[in-house]
């Protein structure tokens, strides 16, 4: 059913005409507004699109609403306005096409399950009493583990893994789902450069296979180097488009509420923070926890 990737690979552009909304986009978010009880909305009037076969980086400072946006897209919090469509259908009706990787803090790592048990959860389909995992589920789970190079840890209790390995387990679970749209919340936070590089390679390969990937991160260099498109978020969408076009000093300053100097280079994007709060180069590039 899949067309050649070249045909599906939509070059990033902005603004996107509404008539393109169906077919080429894995995810279309329209006017999404959501938040928590008795508080002003955490995200407001969000419009964004994730083309099939592309990696889109969602960047913004802590508290910009990245996780809230994911939760609203997935229906984990009820939007007060707007909608999110995956492959032209409401996300709740396209669950088998959508995989989500939460931040590792959302998960109970002390719970006595093995790495394979966790990855198998990605295969969960329909609510059916007395259902067991099939041989196909097991194979898909082991394949996904092999992809993140954790197959030899399959029977280890998840609590015994390091932070980087835990992120890879959650990514394997998202991959095992076989979904065409991946929503990854801070997959690179706290990882060293080598592991981050490995994960990005995995994402690249998935994108080449036609998967659409939305990655929330506050690691600017990662977005500049590895994402086809970037979305700058701070309660609302500040800018969306090809990474090179979007990551300008003006946009970043508005997004991070701080004066940033973006110095694009061939292979990397150097960001210098020049804000009133602190002079800190690593704060944005290093990528801490949260969002």
């Amino acid at each position, binding site marked *: 059913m899949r067309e050649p990737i070249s045909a599906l690979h939509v070059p990033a552009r902005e603004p996107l005409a509404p008539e393109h909304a169906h077919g080429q986009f894995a995810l279309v978010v329209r006017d999404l507004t959501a938040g928590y009880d008795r508080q002003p909305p955490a995200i407001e009037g969000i419009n964004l699109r994730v083309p099939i076969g592309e990696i889109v980086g969602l960047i913004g400072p802590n508290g910009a609403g990245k996780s809230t946006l994911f*939760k609203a897209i*997935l*229906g*984990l919090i009820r939007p007060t306005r707007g909608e999110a469509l995956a492959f032209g259908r409401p996300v*709740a009706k396209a*669950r088998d096409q*959508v995989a*989500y990787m*939460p931040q590792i803090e*959302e*998960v*109970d790592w*002390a*719970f*006595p*399950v*093995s790495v394979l*048990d*966790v990855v198998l*959860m990605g295969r*969960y389909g*329909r*609510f059916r*009493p*007395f*259902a*067991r*995992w099939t041989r196909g589920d097991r194979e898909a789970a082991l394949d996904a583990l092999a992809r993140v190079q954790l197959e030899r840890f399959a029977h280890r*209790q*998840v*609590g*015994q*893994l*390091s932070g*980087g*390995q835990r992120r890879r387990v959650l990514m394997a*679970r998202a991959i095992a789902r076989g979904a065409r749209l991946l929503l990854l919340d801070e997959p690179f936070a706290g990882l*060293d450069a080598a*592991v981050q590089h490995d994960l990005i390679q995995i994402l690249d390969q998935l994108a080449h296979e036609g998967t659409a990937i939305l990655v929330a991160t506050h690691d600017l260099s990662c977005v500049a180097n590895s994402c086809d498109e970037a979305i700058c978020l701070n309660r609302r969408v500040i800018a969306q488009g090809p990474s090179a076009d979007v990551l300008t000093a003006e946009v970043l300053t508005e997004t991070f509420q701080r004066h940033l100097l973006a110095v694009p280079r061939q292979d990397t994007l150097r960001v210098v923070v020049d804000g009133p709060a602190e002079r800190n180069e690593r704060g944005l590039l290093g990528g801490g926890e949260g969002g």
Partner: protein
Amino acid sequence: MAELAEWVLGPYDFTFMRRALLVLAIISVVSGVVGAFVIHKGLAFSGDALAHSTLAGVAVAFVSGMNVSLGALGAAIVTALGIAWTRDRARVSYDTAIGILFVAMFSIGVLVLSTRQSYTPDLFSFVFGDILGISRSDVLGAAILGLAVLVFLAAFSRELLFVAYDPLMARATGVPTRFFEYAMVVVVGVAVVVALKAIGIVLVNAMLIIPPAAASLLVTRLPRIMLLAIVFAIASSVIGMHLSFHLGVAASPAIVIVACAIFVAALIASRWRRTAAESPELGAVA
């Protein structure tokens, strides 16, 4: 040798001992399986609260002449739903809310009982356990409730594991997470009622937490923790009951003391094993 055989098997000449053994086996299986969730989902305090709150049901049923076990079951289910609701959306912290719920239910129980002059042995047995006074219908009741719990857990093992490990993703995948969060507390309540008559309100929570806690020190996967917890619970029950029979001490605390001894032994074994096997292979990579 013959003496040992007599020490071990002799007590089972009595019907009440055979019945006690049977009901303890049921309790061990149910508590081992449910307890594994209890200790790993931070429900230990809830278990204690559920146990104490059953006094309200026991008292109301006793005073109004209804079946006391059914009263306990009703109170446990009502309290379980209250606890689950509290976890879901209370404005105060979880343990504060349960602390309040728990003393409220217990106070209702004591209040209702205080309207009666006589404090009958039947009631006394619910508070401190009366393993040797288990009737056939008690065994049957425990078996039915126990089976219901086990069938529920078997039917939804994937969902329960998923919700316990990662409720957010479970919900995003379409698992009715809230239903299972409520159901799990109700299951703990039913497991408490299964063991209530035999072990008693005061000590019943011990069966839910000590064997799985000991098992968790030695094995790391849920099914194995459950199996080992059942083995520990049965061992505690049998040894405790023999101690009780031969030394003439109360059965329920004897069983709990043996369970505690097993826990300490497991603690020592796990420490010893960890120091012995402190290999680089176990260390996390990357």
